[in-house]
C-alpha cells in the first residue's frame, strides 16, 4: 500500500478551504497550518501564466526527515505515510531543517507536527483526508498507488503531472496535475 495525493493545479482556485478544513479536523493550534496555498505567476504582463497549488508534506518515500531523526520519532507508517510519534520526539528540529519542502513546524506543545494524510482519524475509517473531502472544486485525489482503481491511480493515468523538486531525491507522494 502506498498512499498518495494528486492536486489539480488547473482546477485549484486557491480558496484555502483545505487549509481551514485541516486546521479544524486536526486541531491545529491557531496560527499554524499543515497545508498551505502557493500561487506562482510566470511571465510578463500580458502573457502571464498562473499556477495554484495546495501543498503539504509529501510523505516522501526517501524521507530526509526520517533519516535525520535521532530518536525514530519520525517514521514510516501504514501506506508509506510519514508520521511523528509525539512522545518519542525531543523537539530537536533536525527534521525541520532537513525537509526541503518546509512542511514541518514545532507544535507549541514541544513536539514536531505536520500533515498526517489524516491517517488515523479518517483514512483508516474509510474516509478521504479532510482537505480532499472539503475541496469545493474537487481538485484533490487521494488513494493507494498500488490499487489501480483508486482515484489517485486513475487520475495519474489520465493526466500529466509533476512532483516538487524531484531532484532532491525524496520521491514525493504528492503529485501536481499540470
Amino acid at each position, binding site marked *: 500500500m502506498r498512499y498518495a495525493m494528486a492536486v489539480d493545479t488547473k482546477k485549484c482556485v486557491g480558496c484555502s478551504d483545505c487549509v481551514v478544513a485541516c486546521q479544524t479536523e486536526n486541531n491545529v493550534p491557531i496560527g499554524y497550518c499543515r497545508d*498551505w496555498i*502557493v*500561487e506562482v*505567476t510566470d511571465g510578463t504582463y500580458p502573457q502571464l501564466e498562473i499556477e495554484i497549488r495546495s501543498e503539504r508534506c509529501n510523505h516522501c518515500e526517501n524521507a530526509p526527515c526520517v533519516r535525520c531523526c535521532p*530518536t525514530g520519532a519520525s517514521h514510516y507508517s501504514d501506506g508509506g505515510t510519514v508520521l511523528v510519534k509525539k*512522545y518519542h520526539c*525531543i523537539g530537536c528540529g533536525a527534521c525541520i531543517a*532537513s525537509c526541503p519542502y518546509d512542511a514541518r*513546524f514545532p507544535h507549541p506543545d514541544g513536539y514536531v507536527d505536520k500533515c498526517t494524510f489524516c491517517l488515523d482519524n479518517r483514512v483508516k475509517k474509510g474516509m478521504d483526508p479532510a482537505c480532499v473531502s472539503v475541496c469545493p472544486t474537487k481538485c484533490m485525489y487521494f488513494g493507494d498507488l498500488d490499487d489501480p482503481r483508486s482515484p489517485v491511480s486513475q487520475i495519474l493515468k489520465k493526466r500529466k503531472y509533476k512532483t516538487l523538486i524531484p531532484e532532491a531525491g525524496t520521491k514525493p507522494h504528492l503529485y501536481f496535475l499540470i
Partner: protein
Amino acid sequence: MREEIITSGRMNPMIDPQLHIWHWHIPLYLFLGGLAAGILFFAALYTILGKEKENPTAVKIAPFITPILLVVGLFALFLDLNHQAYFWRLYTTIRLESPMSWGAWTLMVVTPISFIWCALNIKEIFPRWEWKFKFLYDLDAFFRKHLITMSWILLIFSLILGMYTGILFSAFNARPLWNTSILGPLFLTSGLSTGAAAIILMSKSHEERLRFARIDIMLIGIEMFLIVHMFMGFLASTQVHIEAAGLFLGGPYTTPFWLFVFTLGLAFPAILEVLELRKFKVPYMIAPMLVLMGGLLFRFIIAYAGQASRWLY
C-alpha cells in the same frame, strides 16, 4: 519573470521566523564540542607519543576545561530542544543514519573520558589532593595502567566528535549550503585549531606555545584551503548551490564571513603566529583569542546562513 507567493500563510523562515529552527544553541554546542575535541585530541596524541614532558599544558592542564565545555555544550543542546521532558529518548535509540543521534552518543563516550582524564591529573591543579577511599585509588591505578588504551580511544573519538560538528549540518540535503561533505573535515580542522589556540592561551612554557603556534598555522592553512575549496565546489555545482554560495559572495553574509572569520579569525592570527616564530615581539594572547573568536563566529554564520539557503521551486 517568476513570482511565487504563499497566499494562505505557512511556517516559512522568510515569512515566519519559527522555521528558522536553530538559534544560538546549536552553533554554540558545535563550537564547544569542536574546541573540546581539539584539546582532547592533542592530550591523547602527546600521551601516545610519550611527549607529556614537553607538552605539560596540552596533556595535563588544558583538558581540565573540557568537561566544562562538554557539559555546557550538552546543556545548550538541551535548551534548544522543544520537547525537553523527552530528552532521554535520545539515549534509548542509536540511529546511525542520524548524525544528531550518533553525535549525542559520541559525546557520551568523550565526556566520561574527559572527566577521568581530569581526575588522573588532579594533582597538577591541587597538589595536595587525596582520594578519600580505597576504591578510588584502585580506579586511579586501573586507568593509569590502561592510559595508552584510553588515549587511543580518546584520540579516535575526539576526531569523530570534531567531524560530527560538521556532519550534523552536511547531512541535510534540504539546506544546500550545508549539504557538502567538506563541512566535516572543515569543522574538524577548525576544532583542532581552536583547541591549539586554547592550549597556547593556557600554556606557560614558551617552547610549547611556539610548538602549538606552528601547529595552528598549519591547521589554519588547511582550513583556508578547505573554505576556498568549498566555495569553488559550490560555484561549479547546481543553481541551488550557486545561490547558497551567493550568500557569502555579495549576499548578506559577505562582510561578516570574509572580514571577521576569514581575515580576522584566520589570516591575521596566522600572520601574527608566523611573526612570533620569526622572533618578532607580539603579545602571544592576540592570535589565539582571534582564532577562538573566529571559530565561534564561523559556526554561527554557517548555522544561520544554512537555514537561509534552500531549494528553489
